[in-house]
């Protein structure tokens, strides 16, 4: 099981605190053996504005990674031999937990959308991250794991 370390977690915290009124999101990737934090724009507001029926939530209570940026990350990792270790995102003023929507959006036909990827959820309250939780796909469901 991967050990993130304080530097990686501090980087993710800082990205969430930089935009504390909206859910922030991104990846932790591994390239050449080293972990790296990538931020991906949350475009939930763009999709909500375009089609509020299909996308009823805003970035205040949801995230939708910019598909274009997401695609670039996949292409770059494929070219460089890297891999996605974790998907991270923040929750605004509701605490850090793996929500029903988080679960539903992470699985397709019982399989992980990103096989092997963990999820880090950061709770932001009053502009500060006060909680970080880690979830792994195990036995067909996401379970919390110790954060290291």
């Amino acid at each position, binding site marked *: 099981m991967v050990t993130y370390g304080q530097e990686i977690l501090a980087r993710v915290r800082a990205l969430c605190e930089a935009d504390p009124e909206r859910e922030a999101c991104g990846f932790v990737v591994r390239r050449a053996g080293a972990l790296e934090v990538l931020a991906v724009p949350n475009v939930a507001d763009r999709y909500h504005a*375009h089609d509020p029926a299909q996308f009823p939530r805003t970035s205040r209570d949801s995230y*939708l*990674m910019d598909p274009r940026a997401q*695609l670039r990350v996949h292409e770059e990792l494929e070219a460089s031999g890297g891999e996605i270790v974790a*998907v991270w995102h923040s929750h605004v003023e509701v605490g850090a937990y793996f929500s029903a*929507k*988080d679960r539903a959006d992470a699985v*397709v036909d019982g399989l992980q959308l990103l096989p092997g990827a963990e999820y880090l959820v950061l709770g932001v309250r009053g502009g500060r991250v006060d909680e970080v939780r880690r979830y792994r796909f195990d036995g067909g469901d996401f379970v919390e794991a110790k954060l290291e």
Partner: protein
Amino acid sequence: MPVTLRLPAVLAKAAGGKTVHEARGATVGEVVGDVAGRFPELGPRLRDAKGEPYPYVIFYLDDEDIRFQQGFATPVPDGAEIVVVPAIAGG
């Protein structure tokens, strides 16, 4: 000239194990229909019962989501590549 439909790995199982498919069609919907016609399991994963795209299955053409173009009616130039991206999202 055929166009290319590139699927994410998570959908390849429903498409004969391949992620890249040559197809024909004047619109994105026709291209999707062409490939889905060859792989019956794939169709319901790419479009709903009304034949429309699902919210979190995103089709990219010319570096833009077709949702912000003309949806499945978006014209497809010869030789173009349509990339299917499963949105990474949550609440």
